[in-house]
């Protein structure tokens, strides 16, 4: 369910995590912090996994993002801007983790001796090719593609999260799809997988 307010786009998560909850979390109320993490933690984890790529530990990046958000929550003036503020904080944290990904490649993963098969980031030809194609995109195109074509957000919601006009988001999405198609084809994805289709009934 999408609810539109005069100040922007609110998702179902904002309904679960009200401005009062955000204010209480900013004051250190444990129940409010827990509610905020339950409402937004999965989204943050998804963004870190999908935008970070294989070189980034998604849980580490998500933890850093949420800790940074909680530390600066008291500076948020407009609760309606929380989703966009959260996304941009994640983006900044992910960027830093990507820059330091070479350390993880050299030092190895923390506390996992082999890829844990209970994680559902399953190795498959499709997943590997898609991840590699996404990684090859510039960050601004990758972000809009993940928000729209992976997470199914509409143009206005993606634009609100990215902090750009709706028209800019649409043109970036077109360029992102074209470039993704080139990169994915080079990595063996079949043309039917690169079609743009509506939701199945």
């Amino acid at each position, binding site marked *: 369910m999408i609810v539109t307010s005069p100040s922007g786009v609110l998702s179902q998560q904002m309904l679960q995590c009200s401005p009062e909850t955000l204010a209480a979390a900013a004051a250190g109320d444990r129940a409010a912090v827990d509610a905020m993490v339950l409402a937004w933690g999965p989204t943050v984890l998804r963004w870190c996994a999908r935008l970070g790529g294989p070189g980034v530990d998604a849980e580490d990046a998500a933890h850093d993002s*949420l800790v940074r958000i909680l530390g600066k929550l008291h500076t948020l003036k407009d609760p309606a801007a929380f989703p966009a503020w959260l996304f941009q904080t994640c983006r900044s944290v992910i960027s830093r983790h990507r820059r330091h990904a070479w350390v993880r490649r050299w030092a190895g993963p923390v506390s996992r001796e082999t890829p844990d098969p209970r994680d559902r980031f399953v190795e498959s030809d*499709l*997943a590997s090719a898609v991840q590699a194609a996404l990684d090859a995109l510039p960050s601004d195109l990758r972000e809009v593609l993940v928000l729209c074509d992976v997470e199914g957000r509409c143009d206005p919601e993606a634009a609100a999260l990215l902090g750009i006009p709706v028209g800019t988001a649409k043109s970036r999405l077109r360029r992102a*799809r074209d470039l993704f198609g080139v990169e994915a084809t080079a990595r063996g994805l079949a043309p039917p997988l690169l079609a743009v289709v509506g939701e199945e009934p």
Partner: protein
Amino acid sequence: MKRLVALRRWEAATEPTSAAMERLRRRIVGPDHATLLQEVRRVDDRAVERLRQRLRPPFRVGSSWVKLGIPLAVAAGIFASLRAVPTGHLDERLTAMERTERALTPAVALAFRGSGAATGPFASPRLHWDVGTLEVEVDPSAGVNVIVETREATVRVIGTGFTVIRDALGTTVDVAHGAVAVSCGDGWAGTLHVGEHHTCLPLTAPGWLLRVQALRDQGANADALLLALDRGSALVPDSDPVAAELVEIRVEVLVEAGRTSEASEVARRYPPTGPRASEMLRLTNSIDATTP
């Protein structure tokens, strides 16, 4: 809403698991952190002020470390005076088909589903865990030294919360808060902190056979399965029935991965008098029939 087909399918592959989400949640909302803050707030402000005035240079009273350290020291003193090391002795079985919560001692709380035993004095209980999930919470102020042992691992804790799961994959230790020292039978040893987990791998060929079967059920890729098969095969002679079972699974994994020439090679090397020779012959014929 129109989307690229490949990305819509990739969405499911990158959805976070509930386990990953719970680890993230524990890293952010650690109960010991919140409890500590509540205790700090209850400290008498006048006592803090008296301590501040007694502090001499070079300790800078205005520093944030001292501001935090003074109430922490007072809170620790209050806790120490209120708590005493518990007395008593344990010797009981722990068995439950459904998740069951109970206090093992005044300082140790358990939630478990599975089977094991608790022995030793209250001050240093030993939990021998056979199978299932065991969650342990230890009061950090009680000074109790808890040890959890399974076939694959020894876990030592002083004041923390963690989960031990023993199943077909091995023994997995997951830390909710605090830290635990883990020693695995295969030589791995280390300290796990909040949000970290480690799986101590099986030590016997049958244990590795179970792990391989569990990994296949979970859809693990061929490389992970072959690595596990190598580990198990190295623990028994070729004549052992478990070794034969591992070879049969290796052939199946190679066939499923499209590596039919390797699968045929493995199957043909199996001794014709071995306990599963008929299964190997069946697999070899199956490979030959499908290979152009």
